[in-house]
């Protein structure tokens, strides 16, 4: 589904990604962990070209997305993204947040878009919030609307950039439950998160990144209980 080969990304003199190579299968759920500055968010953002890598190649569903000839807007429709800060559109109601891109990008009819939007709101458990503006929603509700918004484009892959880091503890669960449901439905997911409970329950693979390279990867069990590399152990001892 996703092939990444020798990915390099620098910001000025700072090399953040120093050659990442990995592949992610259809339906696989991969959790990325690593210290801040390890490159995990940058890697995720490269996957939908919010950051343009300097070197290396990314292939999604057979299409080389790092090629200069691709239509970047088309690729992004197929790769949903959920942000740490939700980034809902504050001037739009929850339902309109979800339907905006359907109407303007996919040019779907209003009635159809509305049906899709309501369906997705139901899926994330927010049917009663269709007409609420983001500022009237809790953080957990906002993040669930953001997930519904990304799903509206019917993406082949969903990326999550620390989706629960900005949430109060009591709201983390409701968001993780939606994500677990999504994983169970067979969505291909790449998640930057330190939520070990989620990783153990839903992830097929955990990747530990440090200083721009993949240090170790394996099943949640292998990484969290039997990490082989010292740097992985050191990192885990700090977050657990």
């Amino acid at each position, binding site marked *: 589904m996703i092939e990444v080969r020798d990915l390099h990304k620098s910001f000025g003199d700072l090399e953040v990604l120093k050659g990442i190579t990995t592949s992610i299968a259809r339906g696989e759920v991969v959790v990325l962990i690593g210290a801040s500055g390890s490159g995990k968010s940058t890697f995720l953002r490269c996957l*939908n070209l*919010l950051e343009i890598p300097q070197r290396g190649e990314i292939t999604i569903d057979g299409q080389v997305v790092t090629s200069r000839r691709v239509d970047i*807007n*088309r690729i*992004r*429709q197929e*790769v*949903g*993204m959920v*942000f740490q*800060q939700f*980034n*809902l*559109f*504050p*001037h739009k109601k929850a339902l309109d947040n979800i339907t*905006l*891109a359907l109407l*303007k*990008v996919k040019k779907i009819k209003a009635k159809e878009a509305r049906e899709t939007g309501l369906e997705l709101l139901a899926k994330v458990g927010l049917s009663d919030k269709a007409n609420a*503006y983001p*500022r009237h929603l809790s953080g957990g509700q906002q993040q669930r609307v*953001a997930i519904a*918004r*990304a799903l509206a*484009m019917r993406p082949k892959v969903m990326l999550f950039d620390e989706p629960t880091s900005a949430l109060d503890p009591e709201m983390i669960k409701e968001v993780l439950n939606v994500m677990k449901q999504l994983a169970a439905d067979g969505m291909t997911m790449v998640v930057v998160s330190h939520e070990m409970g989620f990783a153990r329950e839903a992830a097929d693979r955990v990747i530990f990144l440090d200083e721009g390279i993949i240090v170790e990867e394996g099943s949640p069990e292998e990484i969290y209980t039997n990490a082989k590399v010292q740097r992985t152990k050191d990192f885990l001892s700090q977050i657990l």
Partner: protein
Amino acid sequence: MNLPDYSVVFDNWAFLMLGMQETLRISAFAVVIGFMIGSAVGLLRLSRVRVLRMAAGAYVEFIRGTPLLVQLYILYFGLPSIGIDLTARAAAIIGLSINSGAYVAEIVRAGIQSIDKGQTEAARSLGMSGHLAMIFVILPQAFRRIIPPLVNEFIILIKDSSLLSLIAITELMRAGQHIRSRTYQDFEIFTAIAILYFIVTFTLSNILGVLERRLQVSD
């Protein structure tokens, strides 16, 4: 000290109101045209094309860095001397619009830049083009934020229009000068004119204050 006698104001009321009409008419044109120029230039200042960005920047810097009166003199006295005749009204509207446009451009640019980068990223990650994101996500939010500084700019424009008295436009200020040159009652005339300007600007700031609150309720 003599007690002021405001009967001179009421005796010349009709003439003052003609001046007021001219002030309002020219200001209205200049506000609208200035807003259009400013919106376009503000967007150009954020353009990806370097030449456009630089041209817009040069316009803003030059207009802000030179006095409005000099700009008006160039249009009204300068251009005819090289064979381009503008009527006083045309020079007035063009001058005020170009001047206001530079300040509006800065307001628009700052308003757009004040919107969190995450908004653009969210829109783009849904597959929206840069233009779609600008039109449907960034501008509606920026517009709410720029209303207060815009109102401020409109008020400044109306006050600045008093300079048009120096290029043969009989607006409120010049109407006052005419009356004063006949009656020599400078105090009464100019305090009355100050109050008339204040009534216009205060009304404007209240109307737009209501608009601002309405927009905030719905976001």
